[in-house]
C-alpha cells in the first residue's frame, strides 16, 4: 500500500524538490519576494508559458515535438486582435478554434505521411510566422476598443482571470488525458507506437488530437496575452519554445514519450515561473533568467539521466523508459 503510494508520487519528487528548494533560496535572498504577492506572481506565469507548455507536453507524451507553438501563438494573437469587434470571449474563441483546426490538420498530415514531426513543424514554424506578418501588415497592431479587456485586470486574492482560465484548462486537459479513450491513446502511441498500433490503437487520431491540443493551447495563450497587453506584434514569442520545452522537462515529462502528467507540467511551469518572477523581483535582467533556466534545464536532464542509469541495473523494464 505504502509502496504503491510512493511509486505513484515518485515522478513528482524531483520537480517538487527543485520547486521547494528554489522557492526557499529565492525567498531568503529576496525580501520583496515573499507572501501572497509571490504566489500571485508565480501563478501569472501560467496563462502564457503554462498553457503553451501544456500543449507542447501533450505532443512530447505522444512521442513527437511541436516546434511551431511560438509562431502559432503569435498568429493567434494577431487574429484575436483583428477580431476584437466580436467581443473579448468571441475573439479568443475564434483564435483558439483556428489553432485547433490547424493543429488537427498538421497532426493528421504528420501521422498519415509518417514523417518526423520535428522536420514537419520546423517548416510550419516558418510558414505561420510569415502568415503572422502578412495578417498584421508587418507592424504591431493594437486593439481599438481596449475597454473590453478590462476584466482581465481583475484580481481575486492570488488569482487573476487569466490564471483561473489557465487552471481550468489544466484541469480539463488532465481529466481528458487520464480518463478518456482518446487521451489514453496518446500515452499508448507515445510509449510504444508499434505495439499500440498492433493492439488496435488508431495511428492517425492520437496524433491529430495531440497536435490539435498543442496548437489550440498555443493559440489560447497567445490570444489571452494579446488581450491583456492590448496589442499583438508579429515578431513576438520566438523564445516561447525554449521556455515551454524547459518547463515541460523541468517538470519531469519524459522526452522518450508515453510518460508524464498534467501535474508534471504544472510543477515545471511553477519552477520556471518562480525563477522568472523571483529574479525579476531582484531587478535582474531577462538574460539572467535565460541563463538560470538553461542551467536548471541542463542540471535536470543530467539528474534524470544519472538516476535512470543507477536504477537500470535493478530494473530491466526501466530500459523502455529511456
Amino acid at each position, binding site marked *: 500500500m505504502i509502496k504503491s503510494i510512493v511509486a505513484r508520487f515518485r515522478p513528482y519528487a524531483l520537480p517538487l524538490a527543485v520547486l521547494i528548494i528554489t522557492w526557499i533560496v529565492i525567498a531568503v535572498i529576496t525580501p520583496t519576494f515573499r507572501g501572497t504577492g509571490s504566489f500571485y506572481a508565480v501563478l501569472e506565469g501560467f496563462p502564457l508559458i503554462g498553457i503553451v507548455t501544456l500543449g507542447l507536453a501533450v505532443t512530447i507524451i505522444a512521442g513527437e*515535438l511541436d516546434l511551431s507553438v511560438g509562431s502559432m501563438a503569435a498568429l493567434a494573437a494577431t487574429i484575436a486582435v483583428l477580431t476584437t469587434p466580436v467581443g473579448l470571449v468571441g475573439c479568443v474563441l475564434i483564435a483558439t478554434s483556428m489553432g485547433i483546426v490547424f493543429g488537427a490538420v498538421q497532426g493528421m*498530415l504528420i501521422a498519415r*505521411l*509518417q*514523417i*518526423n514531426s*520535428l*522536420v*514537419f513543424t*520546423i*517548416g*510550419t*514554424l*516558418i*510558414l*505561420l*510566422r*510569415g*502568415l*503572422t*506578418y*502578412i495578417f498584421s501588415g*508587418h507592424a504591431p497592431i493594437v486593439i481599438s476598443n481596449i475597454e473590453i479587456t478590462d476584466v482581465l485586470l481583475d484580481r481575486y486574492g492570488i488569482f487573476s482571470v487569466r490564471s483561473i482560465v489557465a487552471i481550468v484548462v489544466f484541469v480539463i486537459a488532465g481529466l481528458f488525458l487520464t480518463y478518456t479513450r482518446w487521451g489514453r491513446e496518446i500515452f499508448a502511441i507515445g510509449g510504444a507506437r508499434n505495439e499500440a498500433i498492433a493492439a488496435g490503437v488508431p495511428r492517425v487520431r492520437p496524433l491529430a488530437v495531440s497536435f490539435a491540443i498543442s496548437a489550440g493551447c498555443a493559440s489560447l495563450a497567445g490570444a489571452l496575452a494579446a488581450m491583456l497587453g492590448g496589442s499583438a506584434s*508579429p515578431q513576438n514569442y*520566438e523564445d516561447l519554445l*525554449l521556455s515551454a*520545452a*524547459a518547463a515541460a*522537462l523541468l517538470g519531469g515529462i519524459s*522526452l522518450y514519450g508515453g510518460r508524464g502528467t498534467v501535474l508534471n507540467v504544472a510543477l515545471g511551469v511553477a519552477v520556471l515561473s518562480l525563477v522568472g518572477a523571483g529574479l525579476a523581483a531582484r531587478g535582474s*535582467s531577462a*538574460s*539572467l*533568467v*535565460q*541563463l*538560470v*533556466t*538553461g*542551467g536548471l*534545464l*541542463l542540471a535536470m*536532464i*543530467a539528474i534524470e*539521466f544519472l538516476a535512470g542509469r543507477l536504477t537500470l541495473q535493478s530494473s530491466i523494464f526501466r530500459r523502455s523508459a529511456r
Partner: protein
Amino acid sequence: MSQSSEEGKKFSSVFREKIPVVGSLEVLMPYIIIGLAAVAIIVSVTITPSFLTADNIRAILRNASIVGIVAVAMTPVTLSGNFVSLAISQSAMLAMVSYVALLGAGWHQAPAILIVIVGLIIVGVIQGFIVAAGLNPIITTLAAGAIIFGVVSEMTGGWIVLAGENFVAWGSSNVVGIPIQVLIFLVFTVLVTLLMSRTVIGRETMLVGANRATAQIGGISFTRVTVIAFVIFSVGLAIAGVLNGAAFGQATAVSFPALTIDVIAALLVGGTAIQGGQGSPLRSAGGALLISVISNMMVLNDFSSGGRLAVQGGVVVVVVVLLDQLRRRQVMRL
C-alpha cells in the same frame, strides 16, 4: 525449413535498412535538389529579367554563404545521429561578439580569429561530450544556447560591442570579384564533403548515424565520432561569426536572430535525413543555395517579408515531405 525462411526475412530486413544508403535514390537525391534549384532559376529568369546579372548572382551567393557554412558544418552532427543543434544562433553570436571584442581590445586579426575558433571548439566539445554520454542533443543544445545567450548578455550588458577605430572591414571585400564569404563557403564545403566521404572518420560518422548499435559492435566509438562532429560544427560557427564580425565591425547579444531556423531549414531542404546516416554536407550547401535563390526571386518581385517567410516555410514543408516519401518508397520497393 521454416527456420531458414525466418532467417531469410531477417536478412532482407537488415538489407532494407542498408540498401537505400548506397541505392539509386541516394544517387538521385542531389539531382532532385539540383533539379528544384534549376526549376527555381528558370522560373526566376523568365519572370524577372534582372535575375541573371552578375550583381544579383553575387548577392544570392553572399546571402547563402553564412547560412551555408553553418549548415555544412552542422551536417556531420546530423549524420552521426545527433539530430540538430538548437544553439546555432547563440553560438555564432558568441563567436561574433568575442571576435569583435578582441579586436576592440587591440588584438591582431590572426590571434583573435584563432582564439575565437579555439573558444568555440571548447564550447562545442563540452556539448559533444554531454550528448555522447547519452543526454538528448536537442535539449542539451537548447540549454546550452540559453546559457551562452545569458552569459554574453550579462557580460556585454546588452550594449553594442565595437571593433574600435583600427577596424578593417575585410569581411565585405571581394577577391577577383567574388565576395570573400562565398570563397570561404566554397572551400569549406569542399573540405567537409571530402572529410565525410573520403576519410575513415567520415565513414564512421555515416555508419554511427545509420546504425549505432552495429557501429559500436564494429568497434567505432560513438563518443569520438560525436565529439569530432561537434568540433567541425564549432569551426563552422566560428567562421560564420568572424565573417559577420569582419563585415560589420560591431556585434550585440542578439546578432544572428534567425540563423538557427535558417540553417536547419537549409539542411533539411538539402535532403539530409534528420535521423542520421543519410545525406552529405554538399547537399546542405545546395539547400542553402536553393532557399537563397527562392528568396532572392521573391525580393525582386516585391514580395513582402511576411510573404517571403510564408513561401520559404511552404517550400520547406513540401520539399521535406517529398524527400521523405521518396525515401520511404525506395525502402518499400527493395
